[in-house]
Every structure is written in structure tokens, then in C-alpha cells.
């Protein structure tokens, strides 16, 4: 979901308005657009979308809202995530003191400042359905009654939400609360001063790279072997154990304050949200590295921050949810409230995570009641703030005089909440890599950037994460980087630009060897082949700028058809090899002579047939070329992998008939039981009924080898006399002497 692209949300806003029934659309437009007369529906939609980009009108509309409704938009604005679960918004509104949390949300929907995400609610109307069809939303209550598989989601274009930032939430200053009232419940009141004299050296702030590094490790692991998912969304036992026991993903961070449960699974969830892994046919496979990493660490952290409200499969209380879809997930709303509480602290004030948690437990509707068993009122805020948020560089931490951790928002956290300037997170150390002759790279963390992590991840395998990380250059990883668009020169440049010493010659040699090896074989998975009438035509086409690779004197290949300028060419024919093969072969009466119609044949056929049939004659006659199946040609076909099944399929596809018996004979000759040449006598009887009788009567049946025809029976020579006797007993005299 492109959260930072306003055009995406404007487009979504337009599509959503098109799904409103006309009375509802006019009702919303009356608040948003304020038309002076009866405008057409199309105009109302366009004006509604256009207003989103008009900050003056948006500010005016915001002033017409109740403070509670403005708070909802402000919450969305602070989160930078335009799409929220409706339940989470209601929870936050209640936590902020509203008795009816749904009311402000409904008011925003009716004012056209908040919209339902319809992929998860009502079915999207067909393009050809008339306006006003039954699939359209008639009222927001109707939409709420039919939640989609992901629940009820709402969105507001970021241009609207950002204008609401600054709205007062009436949140308490927790450092003040701690001082005056202490902390109730699970948390002990602090005895130390609440704004302790802090020595700058004791303030800890992470470098923000921990999750990026772990995501990089996971991406590499998934690229090496996909993770198989169960239907419930969990993982198969082998992959589950692989993740659970992974030393690199589960190792405590170098700057470790507290443990994070099921760390590897948290990374998986984040990787999915970042698009680094994608589910394809029940498997998680590696996608592309996030484009935000190429910008800077701040952009990468912003992307992860935006993911927080969408984090549903993991939470700091339960850890990994095992792929189950939670019925309710109150954590996203609690995370945002926690950060807003920290934002409320005066400058230089610190607060214990417990104090934040207590406020959440007392105000958040999910935690205020103790009706659930096992109790949900178990501490988790410290895990979230010191474990997850700290590594995201959202908070700073310090120990107070009681050696208890206290936190406050970092400059990055303030910026992400929309309350401060963009911090400069760029490193000044560019020479941070030490490439060793054994192909190991030592990466000193203080010089790492998100873009360097991305490039290293493509061409070297992460082996250790710490203050100094280690990576290993391997043929497979270099190959992966080359496939992703890097080159020998770009890899060399990265290592040289960021290296503390010159690159060892052995490493350069290995990189060059691996790169050159890749040039030995080129695979075109879906190329366009151009077949010219003569070598001169091909030369002429290349001279006119055809960006093709010559394969032979008349054949050239382009990786993508889009690069061909068709104005230079006259199409003499086209074949699409993704379509079923065309029937262009006829089989002569002898069953072994194949006649190919050249006008309908293709390259596939012309390269396939010579593998199991011999060409008859030189040049084709009457637009047909003839081949013949011979024992030698079929034997050659068998030696290169041609099977009877493949040949049968080929005849069905190309000739539209089953394999002729003669061809089958040549193909299977010598594979079955050897035929026997035996001497038999043939007993000819006068009529069919007599033959039936002889076949049925036990006395004669055992002496007859087989029935050759209606009135002809085969008899073994040694049984001839016995048969004569038996027939005599039956009153039949056998005429004729085999001798």
C-alpha cells in the first residue's frame, strides 16, 4: 500500500465515492463540497476529490467538526498510516474520554473526511452496473453491518489527516502524574525525582538499524528457501522450527535493553508488511528490498513506523499469534496512544514504561475490564517501548537512580509523530567495510546506512549482527546480486567506496570469475524471436536499430517485444508459444511418414521432429516437408529422453491422432516380451457354432491353443492325435492328414 503517495489515496477516494448510492453521495457532498445547486454526480465526485488538495477548504471543514472528530483525524495524521481499523479508532476515541466512540467516526464519514475501504466491505460494483445498483452503499450503518474478511477499515487521504495534527488530545503529563499521585495497580510509584539530572552519556538511543539488518537476514534466508504456510496462516513444522531456532534472527540486539518475544516471527510480519516477502501459492518467497532503503535510514524507519498500526500477527504481550486472525487487535491503538503520551512529556522529562501502561490499562476500553481469562492485564509496555520502539529509534532510554528504565521520545519519534523536524540520521563515516582475503567482509555498524545494507544484502550473506557485523561473499550471493541488476563493477565500487583498505586481489579475482561465469549461459524465459527471410534482411533490420541479439544468419532475439519498432517490419506470420501447439502434421498410411505443413509449423516442431524422425529429401515440396520414423531415429530419440508418453502426446498435439501402431511398434520394439515363432495346425470347421462347441467342451477346449477366426482353431502339433480321438468320441471324423 503506497502510504506516502497522495495520488493513490485521491484515486481511492474517487473510487469510494463512486460506490456511494446517489442520495448518500449528495448527503456527503453537501457537507464536503457544499454545492449551491443540483450538480451532476460526476461533478460532485470530482469536486470532492479536488477539495482534498485544497488546504484552505480542508481547514474550514475541520473547524466545522466537533473536537472529538478532529481528534480522530489528528490521530490518523500522527500515525502517518491513512488506513485504520475502525475498531482501533473507536478505542482511541473512548480512551480520550468520549463515551460513544463511534459518533465522531460516523460524523467524519458523513462529512466526507473519512471513507470506508470497500475491498473489505461491500463488493465493488461492476464497471457496467448502472449508477444506483444494489451493490452501492446506501448508508454507513449498512456498510458497518457487513464487515469484510479483514474487518472494517477506513481511510482518509493524508492531505486531510495532516491538517488535523496539532489538535489537543487532553492527555496527561505522566511525569506530573507520577509525581503527584504515584502509580496504581501493577506499577510501583517511583521514589526518584521525575526529571533526574541526566548525564548525556547515560542517555541511550539506538542507531535504528537493528530491524533493517534482521529484515535483510530474513530476506536472504527466504531467497535461499521459501517458507511454507499452513492454511491457517502459520508455518509448517520444519519451517516453524527453522525460524524458532534461527541463531541470527533470534539473537539479542547489540544494543539490548529488554527481550522481545518471538523475534524471528516479528521480523517475518514486518517483512510481509514491507513487501520483502510475498505469499505465492502457500509459500513465502522473497520479494524486492524496500525502495525506502535506497533513500536513507529516516525513510526506512518511516516505512516501518507506518507498518505499526497494521501489525496484527505479533504483539508484545503474546508474541507470535501463530497465524490466527485475531478477533480484536487493540495493540495498534495502544501503541499510538503510548507515543502520544510520551509526546506530552515536557522537555527533559522521562517516564517509566509502567506509568504509560497504567494509563493505557485505566483508559483503553480493551483493558479497563477484567472479564477475559487469562487476564490481559499483564505488563507488555516495557517490552514494546524498550524492545521494539527503542530499536526503531523512536524512544531514548536511561536508567534512573533505582536502575529502572525510563523513556522519552527521540527526535526521530517526534518527527514521525509529525511534531518535529526531520532528524539527520545520516552517518559521517563512509569507510566502514573491511574486505578480507578469505572473502569475509567486516561491516562496522556506525558507518552503515540503509542503502549500504540493501546493497550488501544482495551480494553477501550476513553471518553475524553486532557492533561489527560480518558478511561472506559467496558465488550464490554474487549471482543473486547480478540477477538483481548489479554488475561486477557496481559490486566492486561498493566495496571500494566503503572499504577501509584496498580490496585484496584474491577477492577481486573471485568476483570477476563469478561474474564472467554468468555470461556463459543466457536464459530468455519469454523472448520474442524474429525470423527473417535471408541474412541480408536481418542485417538490414539490425542496421535500422533493431535492439536484438543475433542467433543465426536469419534469427535474432529480443528479450521484450516492446523494444521492437514495428514500422520497419511487415509481419509474415506470428506464433505464440504460450498457446497450445498447432496441429500441422499429417500421418501417411504407412504410419511412419510424417508430412509437415510449413505454413502452420513453428520452431518448436522444426527442432523437435529431427530428434526422432529422419528428413526425407532436401527442399520442401508444395509447402510440405516430410520426415520418416525409423528404428534408428526413434532409438536416437529415446537416447535423448523421448518417452512413449511424450511421443503419444506429441502425436495428439501435432497430428490430432493417437500414435500409429507402426510408430508404436518401432518405439517399443525390444521393450516387451520377445515374440515367438511356433508351428501350429489349423483346424477348419464348417460353421461357427461347431467352433463354439469345440471351444466350450472341456474335452476339446484344453487341446485348442487359440481361436484364429470364426471357423479356424489353432492346435499344437503334439495335441493333434488326441484331438482326433476326442472328436471321434463326439462322432466327428477329422478329414485330412497334417503329415
Amino acid at each position, binding site marked *: 500500500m503506497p502510504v506516502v503517495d497522495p495520488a493513490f489515496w485521491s484515486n481511492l477516494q474517487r473510487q469510494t465515492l463512486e460506490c456511494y448510492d446517489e442520495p448518500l453521495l449528495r448527503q456527503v457532498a453537501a457537507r464536503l463540497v457544499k454545492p449551491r445547486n443540483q450538480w451532476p454526480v460526476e461533478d460532485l465526485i470530482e469536486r470532492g476529490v479536488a477539495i482534498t488538495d485544497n488546504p484552505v477548504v480542508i481547514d474550514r471543514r475541520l473547524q466545522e467538526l466537533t473536537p472529538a472528530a478532529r481528534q480522530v483525524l489528528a490521530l490518523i495524521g500522527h500515525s502517518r498510516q491513512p488506513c485504520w481499523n475502525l475498531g482501533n479508532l473507536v478505542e482511541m476515541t473512548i480512551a480520550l474520554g468520549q463515551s460513544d466512540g463511534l459518533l465522531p467516526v460516523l460524523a467524519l464519514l458523513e462529512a466526507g473526511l473519512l471513507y470506508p475501504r470497500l475491498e473489505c466491505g461491500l463488493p465493488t460494483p461492476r464497471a457496467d452496473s448502472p449508477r444506483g445498483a444494489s451493490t452501492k452503499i446506501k448508508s454507513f450503518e449498512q456498510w458497518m453491518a457487513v464487515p469484510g474478511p479483514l474487518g472494517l477499515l477506513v481511510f482518509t487521504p493524508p492531505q486531510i489527516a495532516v491538517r488535523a495534527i496539532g489538535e489537543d488530545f487532553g492527555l496527561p503529563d505522566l511525569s506530573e502524574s507520577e509525581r503527584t499521585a504515584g502509580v496504581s495497580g501493577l506499577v510501583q510509584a517511583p521514589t526518584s525525582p521525575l526529571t533526574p539530572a541526566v548525564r548525556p552519556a547515560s542517555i541511550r538511543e539506538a542507531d535504528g538499524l537493528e530491524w533493517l539488518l534482521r529484515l535483510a537476514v530474513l530476506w536472504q534466508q527466504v531467497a535461499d528457501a521459501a517458507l511454507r504456510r499452513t492454511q491457517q496462516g502459520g508455518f509448517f513444522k520444519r519451517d516453524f522450527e527453522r525460524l524458532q531456532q534461527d541463531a541470527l534472527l533470534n539473537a539479542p540486539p547489540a544494543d539490548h535493553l529488554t527481550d522481545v518475544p518471538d523475534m524471528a516471527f516479528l521480523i517475518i510480519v514486518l517483512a510481509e508488511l514491507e513487501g520483502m516477502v510475498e505469499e505465492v501459492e502457500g509459500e513465502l518467497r522473497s520479494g524486492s528490498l524496500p525502495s525506502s532503503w535506497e533513500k536513507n535510514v529516516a525513510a526506512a524507519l518511516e516505512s516501518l513506523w507506518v507498518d505499526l498500526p497494521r501489525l496484527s500477527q505479533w504483539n508484545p504481550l503474546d508474541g507470535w499469534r501463530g497465524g490466527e486472525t485475531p478477533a480484536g487487535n487493540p495493540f495498534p491503538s495502544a501503541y499510538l496512544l503510548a507515543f502520544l503520551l510520551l509526546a506530552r512529556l515536557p522537555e527533559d522529562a522521562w517516564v517509566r514504561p509502567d506509568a504509560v501502561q497504567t494509563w493505557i490499562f485505566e483508559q483503553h476500553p480493551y483493558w479497563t475490564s477484567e472479564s477475559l481469562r487469562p487476564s490481559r492485564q499483564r505488563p507488555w509496555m516495557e517490552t514494546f517501548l524498550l524492545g521494539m520502539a527503542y530499536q526503531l529509534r523512536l524512544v531514548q532510554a536511561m536508567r534512573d537512580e533505582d536502575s529502572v528504565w525510563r523513556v522519552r521520545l527521540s527526535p526521530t519519534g517526534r518527527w514521525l509523530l509529525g511534531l518535529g523536524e526531520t532528524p539527520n540520521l545520516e552517518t559521517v563515516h563512509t569507510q566502514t567495510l573491511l574486505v578480507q582475503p578469505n572473502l569475509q567482509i567486516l561491516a562496522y555498524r556506525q558507518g552503515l546506512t540503509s542503502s549500504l545494507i540493501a546493497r550488501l544484502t544482495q551480494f553477501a550473506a550476513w553471518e553475524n549482527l553486532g557492533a561489527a557485523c560480518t558478511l561472506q561473499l559467496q*558465488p550464490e550471493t554474487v*549471482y543473486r546480486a*547480478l*540477477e538483481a541488476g548489479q554488475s561486477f563493477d557496481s559490486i566492486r565500487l561498493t566495496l571500494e567506496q566503503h572499504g577501509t583498505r584496498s580490496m585484496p586481489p584474491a577477492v577481486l579475482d573471485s568476483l570477476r570469475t*563469478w561474474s564472467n*561465469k*554468468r*555470461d*556463459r*549461459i*543466457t*536464459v*530468455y*524465459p*519469454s*523472448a*520474442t*524471436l*524474429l*525470423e*527473417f*527471410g*535471408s541474412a*541480408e*534482411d536481418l542485417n*538490414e*533490420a539490425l542496421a*535500422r536499430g533493431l535492439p536484438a*541479439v543475433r*542467433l*543465426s544468419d*536469419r*534469427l535474432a*532475439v529480443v*528479450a*521484450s*517485444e516492446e523494444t521492437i519498432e514495428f*514500422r*520497419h*517490419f*511487415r*509481419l*509474415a*506470420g*506470428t*506464433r*505464440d*508459444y*504460450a498457446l497450445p501447439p498447432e496441429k500441422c502434421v499429417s500421418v501417411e498410411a504407412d504410419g511412419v511418414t510424417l508430412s509437415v505443413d*510449413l505454413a502452420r509449423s*513453428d*520452431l*518448436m516442431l*522444426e*527442432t*523437435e521432429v*529431427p*530428434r526422432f524422425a529422419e528428413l526425407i529429401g532436401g527442399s520442401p515440396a508444395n509447402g510440405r516437408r516430410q520426415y520418416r520414423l525409423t528404428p534408428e531415429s526413434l532409438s536416437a530419440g529415446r537416447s*535423448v*529422453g523421448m518417452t512413449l508418453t511424450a511421443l503419444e502426446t506429441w502425436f495428439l498435439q501435432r497430428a490430432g491422432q493417437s500414435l500409429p501402431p507402426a510408430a508404436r511398434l518401432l518405439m517399443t520394439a525390444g521393450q516387451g516380451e520377445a515374440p515367438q515363432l511356433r508351428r501350429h495346425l489349423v483346424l477348419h470347421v464348417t460353421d461357427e457354432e461347431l467352433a463354439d462347441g469345440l471351444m466350450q467342451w472341456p474335452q476339446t477346449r484344453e487341446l485348442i491353443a487359440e481361436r484364429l477366426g470364426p471357423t479356424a482353431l489353432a492346435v499344437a502339433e503334439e495335441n493333434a492325435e488326441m484331438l482326433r480321438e476326442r472328436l471321434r468320441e463326439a462322432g466327428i471324423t477329422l478329414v485330412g492328414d497334417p503329415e
Partner: protein
Amino acid sequence: MLNDPVRPAAGARIPVKLHRRVCLVQTEDAVLAEELMARKKLAQDIVGRLTDRVLLVRPGRVESVVQELQKMGHTPQVRSQ
């Protein structure tokens, strides 16, 4: 095969037959192509030889061909764009 006896005049359109969505493997030399053809698993997926260095792959089998090439220790360059 395309047979057009009429030669295009200068600037005229050149007659061409298009073969779309073809799966090909091009090798550095003919010996390498022979080596690939001799591999039983690859031979099943290779329809035949277009030239001494170009092999035609059965439609839909390109992934398994790439996997098999990698198993053989090759690092094929996959040109999808």
C-alpha cells in the same frame, strides 16, 4: 520457415515472422550446448536445437531448467526484460 523471394527495397518494410513468448537458452559455445543436451533432466525440457549455441526450451519449463543449470554449477543470466 519464412521464405520471401522479394527483397525489400531501401526503406521498405522488412518481412519477418515473429515467434512470441519463446523460451531459449543461449550458450557461450557449442560444446557447452552439447553438455547441456547430454544432461538427462535438461534434455526432457529441451525441445531441440535452433543453432549450435541456442536451445529451445519447452514452454513453462524455464524455471526447472534454470534450477537444473544452477545444480550443475552454472550461473545463468536470466533476461526477462
